[in-house]
């Protein structure tokens, strides 16, 4: 097992190098000069040159062949990309161009918002998706099955930004039950511990804060949960159907076991592997930020932040945010692979 994990980690290295390379290149390829973006259109030439010098933009991109020709080996490697990698190794993602504060600081502030939203959405998706999948499989080809499968197809086809807008229309505009956006009403304070507002307010016993945070998070969480819920329900159903045809299920029935026991203890346990893969991948992509949902509900998470930064040409934020998102994505894929090997003893690790 340890050897399998080690090998899997080694295969990650080229992927990670590729990811940093792509992120670095995107910054260079997107039109516009960061120095001018920082100083504004009317900056003087000397000031632009000074900032370019400060940011290292006057260095070559990858390797400096001129420095090498004059025998300067240190200068050969002193380039934009390698400096970038060096800063990454020190967890330095640079400063935001427009707001002049470290990217890591804002990331630490914004990531909990995305994480809270994603985890709640996943929780909703699991508590509805899995039971629906099990019931559909157990009552195959009945109206219950038909309704839930058509429902899940509609869920997969749902443009979630539109669903979010419909929620706002119904619950905020017409019924006036819930706020249209944001994370917390003004005037309500929650002592930060984990920066997950729901958890913090529970820990400090702040019921007013909890209710307010819940009112803000529930609509975006439902919108975000729709697609994973539908996918999980479909996956659970098809995986259960495969397993329900096995001999040991017939044996369990023949022994006279109650149906719930057969379904949950015998079938679900064996049908759960592919479902776990889907759950892992979906959690990864939810945690990677949901730019559309966050835009509609004015949710202060990383998806919206990176999107605004792309439009505003705030390169350090784009780089830092994208890197974090890609790392989360890769990490969850790795977790899925490892858990798969761990849960299914038939898979050889080495």
């Amino acid at each position: 097992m340890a050897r399998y994990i080690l090998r899997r980690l080694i295969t990650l290295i080229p992927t990670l190098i590729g990811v940093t390379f792509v992120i670095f290149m995107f910054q260079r390829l997107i039109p516009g000069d960061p120095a001018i973006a920082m100083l504004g259109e009317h900056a003087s030439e000397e000031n632009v040159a000074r900032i370019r010098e400060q940011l290292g933009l006057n260095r070559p991109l990858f390797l400096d062949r001129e420095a090498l020709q004059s025998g300067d080996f240190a200068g050969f490697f002193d380039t934009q990309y390698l400096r970038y990698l060096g800063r990454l190794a020190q967890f330095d993602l640079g400063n935001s161009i427009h707001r002049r504060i470290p990217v890591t600081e804002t990331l630490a502030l914004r990531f909990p918002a995305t994480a809270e939203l994603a985890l709640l959405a996943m929780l909703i998706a699991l508590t509805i998706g899995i039971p629906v999948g099990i019931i559909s499989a157990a009552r195959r080809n009945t109206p219950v099955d038909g309704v839930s499968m058509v429902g899940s197809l509609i869920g997969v086809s749902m443009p979630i930004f539109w669903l979010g807008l419909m929620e706002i229309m119904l619950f905020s505009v017409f019924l006036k039950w819930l706020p249209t956006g944001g994370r917390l009403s003004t005037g309500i304070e929650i002592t930060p511990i984990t920066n997950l507002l729901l958890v913090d307010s529970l820990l400090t016993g702040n019921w007013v804060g909890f209710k307010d945070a819940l009112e803000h998070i529930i609509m975006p969480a439902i919108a975000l949960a729709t697609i994973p819920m539908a996918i999980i329900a479909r996956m659970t159903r098809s995986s259960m159907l495969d397993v329900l045809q096995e001999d040991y299920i017939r044996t369990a029935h023949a022994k006279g076991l109650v149906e719930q026991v057969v379904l949950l203890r015998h079938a679900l346990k064996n049908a759960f592997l592919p479902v776990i893969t889907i759950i892992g991948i979906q959690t990864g992509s939810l945690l990677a930020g949901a730019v559309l949902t966050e835009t509609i509900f004015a949710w202060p998470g990383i998806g919206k932040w990176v999107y605004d930064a792309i439009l505003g040409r705030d390169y350090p934020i784009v780089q830092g945010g994208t890197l974090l998102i890609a790392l989360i994505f890769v990490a969850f894929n790795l977790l899925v692979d490892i858990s798969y090997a761990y849960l299914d003893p038939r898979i050889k690790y080495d």
Partner: protein
Amino acid sequence: MTELAAKDTKDIKVADFAMREHRSLWSDAWRRLISSNTARVGLAIISIFILTTTLSHFFWDYNPRTDLDYTLKLKAPNLSPTAEVESIHPFGTDKLGRDIFRRVIHGGWNSLRVGLVSVGISLIAGGLLGLLAGFYESMALASSERIIVLSIAGLLLGALPAWIANQFFIALLFALLGGVAGWFEHFQAHKPLRYILFTLVGGLCGALPALLVSPSTALVTGILGLGIGLFLALSVRGSIISNVIMRVMDITLAFPSYLLAIAIVAFLGPGLEKGMIAIGVVGIPQFARLVRSSVLSVAQKEYILAAQSVGEGHGRIIFRHIVPNILSPVIVQTTMGLANAILSAAALGFLGLGAIPPEPEWGAMLGDSYRFLTSGAWWAVLFPGLAIMISVLGFNLLGDGLRDALDPKLRI
């Protein structure tokens, strides 16, 4: 006695079944497809969608540039003329007084185009990459292919020292070295000798031309050359092609698709055509992975071995024997891909990165109007979104039906 008769008729039925008319795989699949309700609904939705959008595009004139009427700003839907609004707007009007029904119908043309073009890009690029990766992962390289692959590898790897020394013929030297390494593959018997020889020659290829520039450059390119020479001398297997392709796909998959699409559009500039490219590129890895795994599953079949043993070329094996046998999953993925592409195009349009206004596009229409939701203009948001959802649902229903119809496990 009656029991026996019943048994007889049962036997006759079986005989009937065995002698039924011959049907090809595709006509059989078609019959199963139209016998399923989901697929029928999907087909109906898609037919209506395609018919209305193409007919309206060609026969119902619409000029988005001249279409505005401030007197009719944000009017609620009406099915008959009222005192206030004399014209009929079944879906209401938007913030510029444009008829939403008309724009929804015409917007379908853009969604259809985006879907077809971007899925075309992902299918062709991803399909070819997947074919190459899957085929060469399971099959040995022919000697001519080995020479080509090693020459290209030499050229690409040699480009680095060539660039450092600013002398581009170094790359050609390494390409030649790669070709030679491929040519003398029988030289394998003396492995250590082969390694030492190629490493040394590689080092010389890198260092000697670079000496003209400066000694320190020659040192670096020489070291690189040693490595490249050794790499070229190692016995290259087809799995290297597959590895390179799939690693690149892994890197692409490490970014969430929406972020990659936004970044590509930010780089190319907004516009529907740029959106098509972005969505197409983002979809490449999915097709590549699917095609590769399908190729791997058929590559060891007897008919491929048979084709090989009668001496058919690799190109012929791929296109005559492998491609027809992996079509079913690809067709299903293409249908589902169309649904995804329409959804992604709408998302890009919503963020203002798709169609340039005033071009009608469903996502952009939503993005235009959602600010008016708080003032009660629900119709401007409801109808474009419904159009997106229903057309996407149509393709998903058809894809689902196709999967059942084409699944050979169900075939009797």
